[in-house]
């Protein structure tokens, strides 16, 4: 039953991604922008311009371009359906390779931020829920609302100003590692993991040091909605009949707490998934302040350069990851809450 749901979701996801691809494909070509002028370089003649247009294939009718992109025109080599996202017009490298370099940076950043935000926010949210209306509750509630509605790029700037410029605790906002150091040999693409695999603790701690402020910024922003949600779900769970009944049955406090927590966390999964998906695209602001070469920066760069294959690739990959994350969290939700497994 569960397997069938997964398969169905995956199938729907694939159709959605295809629809999305086609939509993005047409959308960017409808825009009043000309990628060729960027491509052709300095002072082109008409002939050179045509040459460049031909080189990137935009001289063909849009429908032909789409077929080639999707890989439905077999004479033209591999396309999307064969797992080829095309070649970036700016970097000239396969988009997939570019993304494989950029994506781990973002994933590393937001995953770390999520884990820390959860570690901090869940207990705080629970604490607040234990005494609804108490001072802690009010403070936590206001903090949750506040942090959840802040311009993260502005806070990132303030953090840089205070912690780097004024206090000198943080490293300069120059990316993931000290620029004079070599990155660890790439195995997974995730610098932290790679540096540990290479046994290079210095680089590992250098990474942590550089991730300090970007992660702190995201944790600050993320903890808002998470605290708010945990507090609300926990408050609800604590007034639920089964918690009251567990107390009535004389169960120890720890068991009662576990009962409530389980019920509170299950519905939180969906929100965490949505937040994660949102962050994947939204981390661009923080990446840009800290010069992190992540997927968001890659997206901005591609968009500003009208790099069509890269734009399409980025949107596709980010959406695909979001869909997979949604699916995974829904599965987790279904495992925690058997009521959902039935549907």
């Amino acid at each position, binding site marked *: 039953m569960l397997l069938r749901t997964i398969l169905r979701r995956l199938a729907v996801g694939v159709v959605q991604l295809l629809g999305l691809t086609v939509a993005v494909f047409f959308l960017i070509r409808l825009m009043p922008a000309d990628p060729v002028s960027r491509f052709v370089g300095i002072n082109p003649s008409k002939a050179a311009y045509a040459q460049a247009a031909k080189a990137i294939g935009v001289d063909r009718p849009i429908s032909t371009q789409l077929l080639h992109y999707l890989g439905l025109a077999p004479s033209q080599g591999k396309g999307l359906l064969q797992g080829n996202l095309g070649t970036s017009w700016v970097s000239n490298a396969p988009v997939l390779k570019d993304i494989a370099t950029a994506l781990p940076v973002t994933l590393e950043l937001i995953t770390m931020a999520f884990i820390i935000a959860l570690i901090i926010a869940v207990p705080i949210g629970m604490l607040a829920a234990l005494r609804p209306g108490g001072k802690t509750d009010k403070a936590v509630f206001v903090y949750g609302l506040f942090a959840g509605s802040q311009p993260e790029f502005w806070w990132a700037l303030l953090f840089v100003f205070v912690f780097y410029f004024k206090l000198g605790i943080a490293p300069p906002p120059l990316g993931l590692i000290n620029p004079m150091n070599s990155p660890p040999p790439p195995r997974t693409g995730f610098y932290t993991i790679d540096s540990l695999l290479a046994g290079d603790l210095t680089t590992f701690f250098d990474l942590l040091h550089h991730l300090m402020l970007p992660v702190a910024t995201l944790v600050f922003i993320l903890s808002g909605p998470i605290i708010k949600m945990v507090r609300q779900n926990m408050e609800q769970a604590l007034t639920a009949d089964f918690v009251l009944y*567990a107390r009535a*049955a004389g169960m120890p406090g720890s068991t009662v707490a576990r009962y409530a927590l389980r019920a509170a966390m299950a519905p939180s999964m969906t929100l965490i998934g949505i937040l994660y998906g949102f962050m994947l695209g939204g981390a661009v602001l923080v990446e840009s302040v800290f010069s992190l070469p992540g997927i968001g920066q890659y997206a901005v760069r591609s968009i500003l350069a009208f790099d069509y294959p890269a734009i399409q690739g980025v949107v596709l990959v980010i959406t695909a990851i979001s869909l997979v994350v949604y699916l995974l969290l829904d599965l987790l939700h279904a495992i925690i809450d058997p*009521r959902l497994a039935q549907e």
Partner: protein
Amino acid sequence: MPPADAPLLLEVKGLKVGYPVQRRMVTPIDGLDLTIREREVVGLLGDAGSGKSTAALAMLGLVRPPGRILAGEVRFLGQDLLKLSPEGLRALRGKDLALIVQNPRGALHPMLPVGRQISNAYRAHGAASSKEGWQRAIDLLRNVGINDPERRVHSYAHELSGGMAQRALISMALSSTPRLLIADEPTSGLDVTIQAQFLDEMAATVRGTGSAILLVTQDLGIIANYCDRVVVLHEGRIVESAATREFFIKPQHAYSRQVLSLVRAPATPAKFAADIAPLIEVRDLVKHFSIKGRDKKVQAVDGVSFAIRPGESLGLVGESGSGKTTVGRCLLRLVEPTSGDIRYRGQSIASIKPAELRRFRSKLQIVFQDPYDALNPRYTMEDVIREPLDLHTDLDAIGKRRRIGELLDLVGLDPKRMGEKPRGLGAGALQRLNIARALATGPEFIVLDEPTSVLSPLARVGFIELLARLKKDLGLAYLFISHDLTTVQHVCDRVAVMYLGQIVEVGTTEQVFKRPAHPYAQALLGAHLTADPMHRRVDRPPVNALAGEIPSPIDLPPGCYLASRCRHVTEACRVTPQTLAMHAEGRPVRCMRVLAGEVPIGGSP
């Protein structure tokens, strides 16, 4: 019944519980005094909002957040629970003091297997490994009569029926033979037959363990049949405490007298000449629902036929899942029947076009089960009644307003409040408003779909009186759908009993209630708790009970639908489809063995 001088088990004095509402304390329990002796079964009777549940919880020193116990003492076995340490209190709860509640499925954690929860409860009061706890859970479930407990321990709350969930709950409550069981409306929401089964089993089990019970309920039948003593809770205080029999004979408090009025004044059914043309005639009504994703069908209504004469009131009774509500919906074509004919004054309305059908809406009306849900929350009372007037009359604004006032007056609501939204009204008043809306266009026939099921006892009494008055004054005909047999007895001239989409027996109210013929009708009426303390159910062995629960209406057996639960079943029953045929006593019954006289016609006490 324990002797009057049995030792005191629980003694509550001056209990006060408060909830903060906008910086004020609201006190649903305000100075409650109560005693329970060992082995005593005490019924705590009270109307909706009287604070019954809050009181029940407070006996365990519990309050739903953010409420607080403000004052008083709860002495249990001599020690004041409210002064105990949290650990001391916890040791008592679930061990000597156990609780079962209404909405048992809500009291079970939705994401943990039942077995784990029972095991946790068991292990909370004694060192036991999780394996032992699990084994104990299986034993406990078996003890409360659950089939196949090895499988059931793995079930989650949503996979259990209400009855089963309540049994799981009581198995948890009784796991450590408590001295006092507090049962807070344990059977609300359960079907009559299940309710009787459950209460019987609870009474029997508790008799075995020697526990006392505080039975919180608003059902006089339960009080009469199971309780030794009654205490009446009204506005947060105990206003009356009496032995059950005395209470029924000589109620002291005004509230008690009002609630009991219905029990003490049985209705007199109307008589009809046989040759009056029927107002509504239903023939071979069938309704199938297809199940999404599967090619199976739910046979909700399976060939139902009946007729109702002008001014007559037909009761349609049966357990939930019997299809009685669908019949009501089909009659008005709120649900499109699959086949069959419906005639109103001889004219078929089963297949006319929707636009044409709308004209008939003014003549055929319906009142729904949940009075709150049936009203658009954004409408004032005036809006509610105006809508049908807009649709079906050409009255001018003044005329409509006058009519609205009349209608409100007719159902006993204050016309001056017509500009208010119904939000703040009680369920009883809301249901009156629903009636007023149904009456707005002057119908001759109203389907009443469980109209009293969510009303408090007091409201129910008033509502039944209203129905009787309207019927008499306006000559209305009713199809009264209900599982509440007491109400049916008071409202209906004739009764049809449904089981799994079929009518199994039709007769006058007296016939069906006094001498039910069909085995299912016998079981149903047998489970009916008559509010008569002279013939207590606990004092006699239950008769005519059915085994198990109502089967799913998806894969129905080829023969008699009741075959799997019937005491009188034969091999022939299992393969022969049963037909509704006239019984010797002049009423149709769907059972070949009854028709053949092989099954004694049941006498109700």
